[in-house]
């Protein structure tokens, strides 16, 4: 019993330390960080300045707004496509079903780095480079298949008898999906939405490649632009990192239960 707590405490310390250190670094002055001594605690008097430093020292609010736009757009588009596709996979046997299912899975294997060049060419033609909508479209290609997988698993658990009864009452397929199946699978929709949101909030490779204008960068690219750049003071950089991390972490903690349920529905059943 003792050993369990020691092991857990050690694991928790390793898991939490880097995030704690981000906060500590954000509240310390440049001179303190490079002065040769280690300050183990955050300077609580400067906690309030974390926000102002990030906002004044970098276009962090602009970048966060862009990230939120991309993440929200990706979530809505992925879910709209995924709900319909999941319903087809869960309720019908049709020619091409196997190929479709495989194609959805195969996108998990696709290295973004391989698709990024062809996508670049397509977006160049469509005028979607340096455009936040381009990121929404690109991210959806990776977020939507995961959403289909999660939602289909949940739909498989809804008894068909309810729909058969509705069919007798002259209910259309689309109405059944909307009025019967969707309300019953709401938790899986939440899980899929959260994952899609997270993936696109964090996404870096497409953002880094497609977005040129600094005011159109999402926060992932904005933050990464500080790597190897020594002009912006480190506390400012870390303040920006804190500002980018806090919404994701808070959001995650709020919805954690749902994500876990959605994730495991697929993985545990295998």
């Amino acid at each position, binding site marked *: 019993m003792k050993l*369990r707590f020691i092991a*857990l405490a050690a*694991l928790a310390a*390793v*898991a*939490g330390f880097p*995030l704690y250190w981000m906060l500590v670094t954000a509240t310390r002055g440049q001179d303190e960080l*490079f002065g*040769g001594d*280690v300050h183990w605690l955050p300077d609580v008097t400067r906690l309030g300045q974390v926000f102002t430093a990030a906002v004044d020292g970098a276009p962090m609010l602009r970048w966060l707004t862009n990230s939120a736009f991309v993440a929200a757009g990706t979530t809505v588009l992925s879910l709209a496509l*995924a709900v*319909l*596709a999941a*319903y087809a996979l869960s309720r*019908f046997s*049709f020619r091409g079903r196997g190929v479709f299912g495989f*194609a959805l899975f195969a996108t*998990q*294997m*696709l*290295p*973004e*780095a*391989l*698709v*990024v*060049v*062809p*996508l670049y*060419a397509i977006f160049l033609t469509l005028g979607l480079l340096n455009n936040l909508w381009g990121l929404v479209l*690109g991210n*959806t*290609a990776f977020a*939507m*298949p995961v959403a*289909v997988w999660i939602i289909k698993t949940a739909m498989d658990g809804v008894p068909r008898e309810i729909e058969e009864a509705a069919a007798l009452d002259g209910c259309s*397929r689309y109405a059944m999906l909307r009025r019967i199946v969707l309300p019953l699978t709401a938790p899986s929709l939440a899980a899929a939405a959260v994952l899609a949101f*997270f993936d696109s909030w964090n996404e*870096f490779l497409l953002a880094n*490649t497609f977005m040129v204008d600094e005011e159109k960068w999402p*926060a*992932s690219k904005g*933050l*990464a632009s*500080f*790597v190897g750049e020594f002009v912006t003071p*480190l506390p400012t*950089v*870390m303040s920006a*990192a804190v500002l*980018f*991390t806090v919404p*994701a972490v808070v959001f*995650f*903690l709020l919805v*954690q239960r749902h994500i876990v349920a959605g*994730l495991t529905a697929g*993985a*545990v059943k*295998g």
Partner: protein
Amino acid sequence: MRAERLAPYVFASAAALYLLAFAAGPLLDGVWLSFTDTKLLDPTGGEWIGTDNYTDLFADSRFAGTLGVTLIYALSTVVGALLVGTFGAVLLDKAFRGRTALRALLTLPWAAPTVAVTLIFVWIFNNDNGVLNHASEAAGLGRHGWLTAYALATVTAVSVWKVFPFVLLVVLAALQSVPKDLVESARIDGAGPARVFRSVTWPFLVPTLRVVALLMTIWSFRRFEIIWLLTQGGPVDRTTTLVIDVYRQAFLDSDLGRSAATGAVGLVLSAIATVAYALTERHSTAKDLA
């Protein structure tokens, strides 16, 4: 009735067309690029050169190194994440005060945005002022170039740190689906904790671990930003995985053909992992039935 036959196609069409346009299309385009000499500055002006990119690639000794780094990185990340994640899940499988809070704390690495996390690690590993070298020096172990001398090990450790919570959450859910009465009756029959784990719990975990291992492997082959932002593939290619090479060849060397060929090799690796997974699953299902 006819409407009912068409219905699945109507429902699936939007997603299918989408995948065709934004995943399958670009993928095929990428494969085609790998047989051309396309350059970044003239992305439509490439000419068909057959398998030259591939023969060049396999003749290049650097490529063997890249392949080796990719395999070592993927293998150690997968094994590390599975070990730490399963270990954590087993520790959390018992109800105790503060379990929910601890579980939340242990999943933070997964929730935090990768780019933000990588930035703080760069600072933690900083040679002169990083906290790790301060601590290591204070402990009498001296200073080390974490991102130079031990680059691959460090990059792997950061990756394990980032993804082990996923393993933990999924394995924890699997553990909690183990029927309690089965565990109970094994205990009554005199089985110790180790024996219960091996004979009762483990068989329930195996299918889950297999899926998680597959996902982890595929994700390791794909992972970009952790490595790119920590080391950019350096020093001297020691952390250059296939994906890093794909990016470098395309956007630094402007050689889209060669980059696509490298990417295709990465895709083949993922496909091999998937086939291996399918085979072991079929094998074990056959064993269960026998």
